[in-house]
C-alpha cells in the first residue's frame, strides 16, 4: 500500500548510500536540478512537495505543494498569475525529465501580491497522469519530482522528492 510520507532526496540519498553506495542513479538528481534556473527561497519560507512513496502504475500521482511561513513576521509573496501558479518536474532517477506540468502552457503575466502571516500555510494540489510530455505512459520504477513556485523572477523550487511507480 502506498505510503503518503514525503521522502526528500536527501533522505533517499542517505538511505541509498547506506545500502548501495555506488549505484549510478544516486547522484543524478543534481544534474536534473541544474537544468532549470531557480532562485533562493527566503529563509523563513518552507516549500515542500508531498508525494506518496509509491503509486501503482497507471494511477494518477497526487502532488501537493505546501508553502509555509515559518518566520515571526508576515512575508510578502509576489506570485505570478492571478492565483498560485505551480510547475512540477518529474524525472527518472537517472536525471531525464519526463514531464513538466507547464510545458507549452501560456500563463498570464500578472503579479499577485499575497502576504503570508506567521505560521500560515498554503497548499496547492496537482496530479500527474504518469505520462510523458509526449503522452506515452512511463515505465514502472524510481522517479524524482520537484515543484516550482512561479514568482517575480526565477521560480522557487522544492527539494527533489523520490517516489516509485509500482508494477
Amino acid at each position, binding site marked *: 500500500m502506498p505510503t503518503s510520507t514525503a521522502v526528500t532526496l536527501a533522505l533517499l540519498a542517505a538511505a541509498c548510500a547506506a545500502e548501495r553506495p555506488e549505484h549510478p542513479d544516486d547522484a543524478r538528481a543534481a544534474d536534473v536540478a541544474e537544468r532549470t534556473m531557480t532562485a533562493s527561497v527566503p529563509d523563513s519560507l518552507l516549500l515542500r512537495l508531498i508525494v506518496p512513496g509509491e503509486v501503482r502504475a497507471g494511477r494518477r500521482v497526487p502532488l501537493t505543494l505546501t508553502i509555509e511561513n515559518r518566520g515571526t513576521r508576515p512575508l510578502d509573496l509576489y506570485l505570478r*498569475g492571478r492565483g498560485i501558479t505551480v510547475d512540477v518536474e518529474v524525472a527518472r532517477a537517472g536525471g531525464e525529465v519526463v514531464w513538466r506540468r507547464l510545458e507549452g502552457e501560456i*500563463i498570464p503575466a*500578472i503579479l499577485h501580491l499575497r502576504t503570508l502571516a506567521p505560521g500560515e500555510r498554503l497548499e496547492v494540489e496537482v496530479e500527474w497522469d504518469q505520462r510523458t510530455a509526449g503522452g506515452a505512459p512511463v515505465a514502472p520504477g524510481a522517479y524524482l519530482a520537484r515543484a516550482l513556485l*512561479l514568482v517575480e*523572477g526565477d521560480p522557487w523550487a522544492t527539494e527533489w522528492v523520490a517516489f516509485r511507480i509500482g508494477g
Partner: protein
Amino acid sequence: MRFTIASLGPVVATSLVLGACADAPNPVEPPAQLEAAAAAQGRLPDWFAQSSPVVLALPGTVFADHDEANDRLLFGVENAAAIRGVTTALSRLGIPSSAYAIEITEPIYQVATLRDRWRPTQGGIQIHFGNFLCTLGFNADDGTQRSFITNSHCTGKQGGVQSTQYYQPTSSVDGTVIATEVEDPQYVRGGACPRGRKCRQSDASRALYSSSVGSTRGAIARTSGANNGSLEVTGTFSVTAQDNTTRTFAGGTTVNKVGRTTGWTRGNTTNSCVNVNVSGTNITQLCQTLVQDPNGAVLVGGGDSGSGVFRVTSGDNVQLVGILWGGSSDGRLFVFSPLNNIQQELGTLVATN
C-alpha cells in the same frame, strides 16, 4: 585655546607641521599659521553656505560638500575644464585655496525605474489594483476620453466592467486613483471558440484617467537597452504610428515591449494568428501572436501583463502593434494581442503622439 593635530584635521594639521618646521620659537604659543587655520575652520560653515549655490550654478559642477571629516570644503566637477570656473568663483568669495579641494567625479543622474511614480504617466510603467501589479500598456484617446490600455485580466475580473481603480506605482506610494476601468468586453462562447471555453480576440481593457492625473499620449518609457534586464528609465519611445490592420505578422518580425518586471525586451514573431488557451482557465484568446528571442533571452515575467508591443521604426520612433498578456513559465516566449483585435473589441483608439 588649545589645538591638537588630531582634532584640527588635515588642513590645519598640515599648517601646523609646516609651521613647526619653519620656525618654532615658542612652543607654548600657537604659531600664526595655526591661528589662521583655526579661524578658517570656524568659517567653513559660512563659506559653504555662500559657495554652494554659486559653484553649483557653474557648468560642469557635480556636488558641493562641507567635508567635516577633513575640515574643508569639497567640490566635485565633471572634468578638468570646470575647475577654473570653480576656483575663480571661490576666490571672488574670499575663500582661500587652503580651505577647499576640487575633485573630478562622475556626473550624477537621477535614476527612476519603471516601478517608480510617474506623472504624467506613460506606457511601460507599473500600475496597481487590488492585490495585483501590471503594466500600463499605452495611453490612448477613445473619442475625447483620455485613457490607458492594459489587459482584461488586469482588472477586477477578466471580462466585464467592475470599475477597477488603478494606482501608480502602488496605492501605498500614492493613494491617488489615476484611472478607472470603463471598457472590458465579456468573453463569449460559440463561433470559433472551442467547446466549453470562452473567447475574445484580445486581452485588453480600457481605463479612463482621473481628471487630476496627467498622461502623455504617444510615450512609452525606454530603458537603457533591449534584453539587458535594466528597469532604469533613460528616455522615451515615441509612438509615431500604429498598426491598425495586421492580424497575421510575418514570421521573424522583430517586436519590442517595455514592462515593469523585465523592462525593455525584444524578440521575433514565431507564430501568428494562433488560438491560445490560457493556462488554468477556460479562456481561449483567438488570433494571437507568439514571440521569442533567437538567443533564448527571457522576454517576460510576472507583472509585465499589459505591456505595449511595438516595432522600432527609426531611432526612438515606434509603431504600436499590440499588447502583451502572457508567456511561458520560463519567460522565454510571450504572447500578444494585435492592435487590430484590440480595436475590434474596444473601438478606435488614437495612441500616437
